[in-house]
C-alpha cells in the first residue's frame, strides 16, 4: 500500500514499470512480468501497418569488466508487431490485469500515422501513450538518422498532433539525451501540450571493436553500426537530464536510462522522476528483481520517514547549483584514519602522479597528508579501497 503512487492522474501500485524493450514485446512475457509484481509496462514501440522493421542480428553487445556487466548496447528497432496486433494485446491485458498500467509506445512518420496510432490504442484501453521521439527511424522527413527529439520545432509540432488526437489519456514524450540543450527540447514538449516526459533513452555509442578482426560490436557479418547504450554506464547522464528537465520545466517525469536497482531508482526520484522504468536490469537479471526494488524502496522510505514515493520526488534538486560559480569556496584537506588504513599505498601513488604530491608513504606503510600541499581534490578518497578510511575535512 505504502508504495502506491500516482503519475499523470493514473494510479501505480508501485513506482516501478517495465520500459519499452523485448521484455514488453510478447504477451506471455508481459503476463509473467505483471505476475511478478511490476506495476505496469510500456509496450514495445509500435507503428502503422506496412512500416518496415528489418532487424539485423545479433543486435546486442555488452561492455564488461571482469565479472561486472557495465552496460549494454543494442541495434534493435521498434516492434515487429504493428498497431493492430498491439491493440489486440492491450485489450487482452486490460481484462486480465485491470490494476496494471498499460502504456502504449508509438512511432509514426506523418501526422496521419501518429494520430491514427493514438486513436487505435486509446480505444483498445491503453492508460497512457508514450511517443518515441528518440528513434532514428521516425524522423518525419528530416535527415535520415536524425531523431525527432533533436529538433525543438519538430518536437513541438508532432507533440501537438498527438495531443490533439487523444481523447483523455495522458501523453508522454520520450526524448533523447543526445542534444546540445535538453531544456530547449523539454520546453518544446511542454509547448506542444504533452502531460509528461520520459527521460531519457539510450545514448548513441560504438560498443567497442574486436581489435583482432577490426569489426565493431555487435558484429553483423563483418559490419556493425552505432548502438543505443543503456544500463549502468548511462545512469549519471540520465540523472543530469532528469534534473535539468525537472528544474527548468517542472514537467512530470518518467525516468529511464541506467536504473539497475532501488538505489538508482531513488536517485532518479530525488532529481524529479515520479516513476522509473527498467529495461537493461531486467534483461540482465529477469523480472525477479522487482522484489528487491519494492523492499528496498520501503526500507528507504521507512528510514527517511517518507510516507509516499511522491515525497521523494525532487528532494535533491535544491542541492544542485546553476554553475560552479555558486559553489562555496572552503579549504578542504584529506584526513586519513590510520586505524582503518591497510597500507596499500594506492592514495600515495594517485596523489603523486595524478594529484599534488601531497601524501608521504614511509617504510611503516602509513600514508601521511602534507596539509600545505593538499588542495582537497579527493582523489585519494576515491581510490582508497577501504570505505570510510579517508574523508575530506572542510576547515574554516
Amino acid at each position, binding site marked *: 500500500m505504502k508504495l502506491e503512487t500516482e503519475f499523470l492522474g493514473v494510479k501505480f501500485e508501485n513506482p516501478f514499470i517495465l520500459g519499452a524493450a523485448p521484455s514488453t514485446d510478447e504477451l506471455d512475457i508481459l503476463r509473467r512480468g505483471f505476475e511478478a509484481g511490476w506495476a505496469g509496462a510500456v509496450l514495445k514501440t509500435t507503428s502503422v501497418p506496412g512500416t518496415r522493421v528489418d532487424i539485423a542480428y545479433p543486435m546486442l553487445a555488452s561492455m564488461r569488466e*571482469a565479472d561486472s556487466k557495465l552496460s549494454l548496447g543494442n541495434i534493435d528497432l521498434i516492434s515487429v508487431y504493428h498497431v493492430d496486433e498491439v491493440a489486440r494485446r492491450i485489450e487482452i491485458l486490460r481484462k486480465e490485469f485491470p490494476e496494471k498500467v498499460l502504456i502504449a509506445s508509438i512511432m509514426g512518420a506523418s501526422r496521419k500515422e501518429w494520430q491514427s496510432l493514438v486513436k487505435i490504442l486509446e480505444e483498445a484501453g491503453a492508460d497512457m501513450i508514450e511517443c518515441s521521439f528518440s528513434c532514428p527511424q521516425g524522423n518525419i522527413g528530416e535527415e535520415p538518422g536524425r531523431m525527432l527529439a533533436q529538433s525543438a520545432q519538430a518536437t513541438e509540432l508532432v507533440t501537438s498532433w498527438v495531443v490533439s488526437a487523444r481523447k483523455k489519456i495522458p501523453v508522454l514524450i520520450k526524448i533523447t539525451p543526445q542534444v546540445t540543450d535538453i531544456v530547449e527540447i523539454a520546453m518544446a514538449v511542454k509547448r506542444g501540450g504533452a502531460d509528461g516526459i520520459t527521460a531519457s533513452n539510450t545514448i548513441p555509442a560504438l560498443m567497442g571493436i574486436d581489435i583482432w578482426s577490426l569489426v565493431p560490436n555487435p558484429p553483423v557479418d563483418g559490419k556493425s553500426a552505432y548502438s543505443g547504450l543503456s544500463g549502468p554506464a548511462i545512469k549519471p547522464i540520465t540523472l543530469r537530464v532528469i534534473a535539468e528537465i525537472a528544474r527548468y520545466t517542472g514537467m512530470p517525469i518518467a525516468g529511464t536510462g541506467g536504473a539497475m536497482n532501488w538505489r538508482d531508482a531513488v536517485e532518479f526520484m530525488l532529481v524529479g522522476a515520479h516513476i522509473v522504468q527498467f529495461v537493461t536490469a531486467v534483461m540482465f537479471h529477469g523480472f525477479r528483481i522487482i522484489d528487491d526494488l519494492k523492499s528496498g524502496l520501503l526500507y528507504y522510505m521507512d528510514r527517511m520517514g517518507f510516507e509516499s514515493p511522491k515525497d521523494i520526488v525532487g528532494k535533491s534538486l535544491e542541492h544542485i547549483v546553476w554553475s560552479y560559480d555558486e559553489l562555496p569556496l572552503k579549504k578542504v584537506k584529506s584526513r586519513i584514519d590510520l586505524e582503518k588504513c591497510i*597500507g596499500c599505498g594506492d592514495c600515495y601513488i594517485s596523489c603523486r602522479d595524478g594529484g599534488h604530491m601531497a601524501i608521504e608513504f614511509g617504510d611503516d606503510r602509513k600514508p601521511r597528508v602534507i596539509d600545505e600541499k593538499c588542495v582537497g581534490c579527493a582523489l585519494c578518497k576515491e581510490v582508497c579501497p577501504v570505505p570510510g578510511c579517508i574523508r575530506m575535512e572542510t576547515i574554516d
Partner: protein
Amino acid sequence: MKTIVLENQKSPIFIYREADRCLLCYDPPCTRNCPAHIDIPGFIYHIRSGNFEAAYRKIKSANPFADTCGYVCPDENLCQKECIRGLIDEPIRIRELHSYVTETLGYRDVIEPVRLKGKKVAIVGAGPAGITAALKLIESGYEVHIFDRNGIGGIPSAEIPLGRLPSEAVQRDIMALKRPGIKVYDGKEIKSLTELEGYDAVLLAFGLVERDLKIPGADLPGVIGPKELLRSAREEKTDFSGKRAVVIGGGNVALDSAYVLKEKGAHVLIAYRRELKYAPSWTKERVLTFLKGVEFLYLVSPTEILGRDRVEGVRFVRMRLEKADESGRPRAVPIEGSQFVIEADVVVPAIGETAPPYFPEVRRDERGFILVDEKGRTSKEGVFAAGDLTGEGGTVVEAVTQGKRAAHAIAEYLGRSS
C-alpha cells in the same frame, strides 16, 4: 592463513576476478616476500589488460622456475603471507595467477641473445639453482658447462611427487637450457676442482645426501632412503601394495615419502618425535598427506629396526617435550620404559639431509654445508655456491634466488678479472 588451496584454480573467470581484486600496492609486500622478487602487481596488471605475453616475461625472467613454483611454492609463507588484500578479505592467490600465465602460454624464450665474451663457467648440479645461474650467466655473455650425475632438473624433476607437480611444468622450466653457449653434461659426476681445469669460474650447486639413521638395524633390507623412494615412485612398476610402511621424520620430505608410499598401495604411518605444530613442514603438504589417508604418530622416536633378513618392525620409545633447544623448538627426550614395537615391512628414515663431502677445497660449516658469503662466494676465489648445499632456504624459489645471486657475483668477478 584463511584458505588452503589443494588444487590450482584454472578457470579464466577466477583468474580475471582474482587479478581484479589485487590492490596494485605501492612498494608491495608480496614482491618483497617473494624470494625471486617477481614484480607481482606488475604482472597482475598485465593479466587485467589481457597482456599475457608481458606478464609471462615479467614472471619468467625473475624466476626461471616459475612453472615449477606455480605448483610447489609455499605461497602462504612467502608472497601471500603479507598480502595487503588479506587485510580486507583474502590474500590474492598469486601463485595460481602466475601458474595460469605460464601454463596458458606454454614455453617462451625470454632470454635476449648476447655476444659471448669468451669466458667459461662450470656449474656442478643441474637443479633450480644451477639452471637459473646458467641462464643468467648466458644473459651476461658467459659460456656455461653444466654437469649433473643424475640428469637435468634436480629435485623438481626427480623427487617431488607427480601428484604435487606435473612433470610438464618442470619440462617447461628446463627447456630454456637448450641454447647456444650452454653445454649440458648429464650423467657426469664431478667431485673436486681438479676435474674442472680451464674454467674461469666454478659454481657448486649440487644436491644433498640423506643423513643416516644411526640405530641398530638401519642397514636391513627394507630400509629405503627417501631419495631412492621418491625417485622410484615416479616409475609405473613400483608397487608397495599391502606393505606396512613407517616413515620417520616430520619435514616435507617425510610427508612426500608417505604420500608416494600411499599412492603405491602401502599402509603408511608417519612417526615424528615432537608434536605436529613443531614439525618443519607446510600446512598444505600436511593436509594433502592427511587426506591421502596417511596415519600420524607424534612424540615417538625409533630406537631399533627389528628383523632378521629384512625389516619386520620398528621399536619406538615415547618422547616428552622439554625446554627449547637451539632450533627454538622444545627438546624431545625419551620416556624411560615406554618402548613399544610397530610391525613394518618398509622403513623410510627422512630425518634430514646434508651436503655430500665433495670439493674438499672449500670450507664448510659445522653441519657440513658449504659456507658462502652474502654474494654466494665460497672460501676459494673463483668458486661460488648456490642452492640447498649452502644450508639456506630449502625451497625451489630460494634455490632460484641463490642461483641469481651467484650468477651476479660470478659476472662481477669475471668482469673485474678481464
